[in-house]
C-alpha cells in the first residue's frame, strides 16, 4: 500500500499512503523537527504552485502533508496510472524531483500582543511554581522566545507552536477546563498555543491576546498558518482594550 522514495536533496525517505478515496498523505520522517517543517512547508508551496488537476487543498502537520482531491477530475487527467493513488503518486514524485534552493520559502513573521496573568492568565502562577520561576520571569522567557507554527488543528485557527524555552515546560491540566475564553494563550508540555474560540481545553493559560486568531470575514480566516514564525509581546490592559475596540 505504500511507496518508498528518497526525498531529493535530503536522505529523508518519503512515504505515500491513502487516507480516504479523496485524500492521500505524504509522510516525511517521524519526529518533530524544524528542518523537517521547513521541508514540508516547501513541498506544500511547490505542490500548490504546480497542482495536478483535481487538487482541492492540502493539510500540513508535524511530519505529513495530506492532499485532498476530487477523484472524478483526477481520473480524467492524463497522469500515468490506473487509479487515483497511482496518478497522484506520479505527480508527487515529480514534485519531489523539482530542483530547488534549500528552504526557498521565507516564513511570515508575526508579533502577537498578550496581556499576561491576572484574570486573563489564571495559570501563570502554576507555570511559575512548576518551573521554580517568578511570574515576571515566565513572562520574560515567553516573550524572549521565537516560535514556529508546526500545524493548525484541534479547532479552526488553533496553531500548535514549537520552540518554547524548556524552562517553561508544564504538563497539561489533569482535568480540562470546560470553557477556555477566546484568545487565551496556553502552555502544554513544550508547546505554546492560542485558543481562537471558546472551547474546552487542558492547556495552562498564562495570558490572553486581543487579536482575532480566527475570523470568518478575513480572506485567510486563520491568522496563523503552518511554517509561520511568531513572537509574543507583553501589553498592559489599556493597550489590550484599545485592540479590542478595533
Amino acid at each position, binding site marked *: *500500500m*505504500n511507496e518508498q522514495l528518497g526525498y531529493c536533496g535530503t536522505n529523508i525517505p518519503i512515504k505515500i*499512503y*491513502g*487516507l*480516504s*478515496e*479523496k*485524500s492521500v*498523505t505524504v*509522510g516525511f520522517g*517521524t*519526529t*518533530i523537527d524544524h528542518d523537517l517543517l521547513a521541508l514540508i512547508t516547501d513541498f506544500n508551496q511547490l505542490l500548490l504552485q504546480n497542482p495536478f488537476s483535481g487538487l*482541492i*487543498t*492540502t*493539510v*500540513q*502537520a*508535524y*511530519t*505529513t502533508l*495530506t492532499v*485532498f482531491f476530487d*477523484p*472524478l477530475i483526477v*481520473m480524467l487527467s492524463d497522469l500515468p496510472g490506473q*487509479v*487515483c*493513488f497511482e496518478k497522484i503518486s506520479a505527480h508527487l514524485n515529480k514534485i519531489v524531483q523539482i530542483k530547488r534552493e534549500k528552504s526557498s520559502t521565507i516564513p511570515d513573521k508575526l508579533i502577537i500582543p498578550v496581556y499576561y496573568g491576572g484574570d486573563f492568565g489564571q495559570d501563570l502562577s502554576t507555570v511559575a511554581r512548576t518551573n521554580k520561576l517568578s511570574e515576571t520571569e515566565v513572562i520574560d522567557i515567553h516573550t524572549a522566545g521565537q516560535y514556529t507554527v508546526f*500545524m*493548525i*488543528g*484541534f*479547532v*479552526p*485557527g*488553533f496553531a*500548535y507552536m514549537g520552540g518554547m524555552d524548556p524552562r517553561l515546560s508544564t504538563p497539561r491540566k489533569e482535568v480540562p477546563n470546560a470553557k477556555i475564553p477566546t484568545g487565551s494563550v496556553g502552555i502544554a508540555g513544550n508547546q505554546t498555543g492560542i485558543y481562537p*474560540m471558546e*472551547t474546552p481545553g487542558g492547556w495552562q493559560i498564562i495570558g490572553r491576546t486581543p487579536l482575532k486568531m*480566527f475570523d*470568518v470575514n478575513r480572506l*485567510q*480566516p*486563520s491568522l496563523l*498558518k*503552518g511554517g509561520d514564525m511568531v513572537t509574543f509581546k507583553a501589553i498592559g490592559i489599556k493597550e489590550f482594550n484599545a485592540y479590542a475596540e478595533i
Partner: protein
Amino acid sequence: MSMKISIIKPGLLSTIQDMGRYRYLSQAVPVSGAMDELAHRLANKAVGNDDHNATIEFTYADASFKAETPVLISYSGDGATLVCNNEIMPAEKPLFFPAGSVIKLIHNAIGVRSYLAIAGGWDVPDVMESKSTYLTAAFGGFKGRALQKADVLVSGTLLSEVSDEILNHLIERSLTYPNWRISRESLLPENRQTIRVVLANEISWFDATSIISFLTNSYTIDKRSNRMGYHLSGKPLVRKVKKELLSTAVTPGVIQVTGSGDLVILMADCQTTGGYPRIAHVAAVDLPLCAQLKPGDTIHFSEISRDEAEALYLEREHDLSLITMAIGLKYIKT
C-alpha cells in the same frame, strides 16, 4: 420569487448543510456538511437542484414546519417520514404544497437523519464557500446555529431549468406530486449493518489477533455519538507498537483507536487532525450508512482494497449522474 417556510417545531437538531467546506481544512475548519451525503444529494436531485444546494438536516422526527408560500420540496433519509393532512408523503420525489400547508416529520425507526430540499436551495449566506452549519464555532448555515421555533427560511430565487419545469408541471391549488421517484434503495446494499472498510496506515501497529477481531466481531454504537464521531463499544483492540502518533490529517470515515483500544468513527464535523492511530477508513460509499446509525445499533466491518473502494465510489458517482440525466430528460425537450 422565493419560497418560504416557517419552523413550527425544530426537532432535536436541525441544521442547514451542503456538500461541506473543503477548502479551509488547512486552517483546521472541519468539512461539516450533510452526514448522509447520499440522501442530501437525492433530495436535491428530486427537485431539480444541484447537489451543492443546501438542505435541512433533521435529526429523528418530532419536527414540523409550515409552507408560508407555495413550495416545491423533497426529502430523503431514514430519520423521519413526512406527513401532511395525515397523509404520508413519498420520499425522493418532488412534492408541491400550497401556501398554508403544515408538514410534520413523524418517527421512522430505521435511521437518524433526513434531508429537506427546496427548489433553488435554502438561501443562507456562504461562509468560507459553503452553507454548512458548524455549531462548535457557530458559523455557517442559519445564523451559525440550529433551527429554532419561528425561524423563517427562504429558498434561493435562481431555479434550475429542471426545477422550473417540475414546478410548472405541479403548480396547482392543492398538494400534488408526480408518479416517478428516485429509487434510493437501488443505491444502498440490502445489509446495512456491514460497513466496508479499507485498512489504514497504522494497521501494523495492532497485533494480529486484534486485526482479526476488528474484522470479525460486531460493534455497538455508543451513546457518545454525534456529528463529530461515533464511539463504538466492543472488544478493545490491543496495540503491539506503543509509540505515539504525531497529529496528522484525518477526514470523515477514518476509524481511530483510542488509548483504551476503543474505536471511534470520525464523522462530518470531526477535527481536521488527530493523534490516535488509525486502523481503517470507511469506504466512501458506505459512509451514508454510518450517518443513519443510532446508539444501540450493531455493525460489523468487512475489508475491501483501496482500489475496490475507489471503483465503488466511481460507480456510485456514475449512477448518480444517470439519475440527474434521467430527471432532466423527463422535463427538458432536447
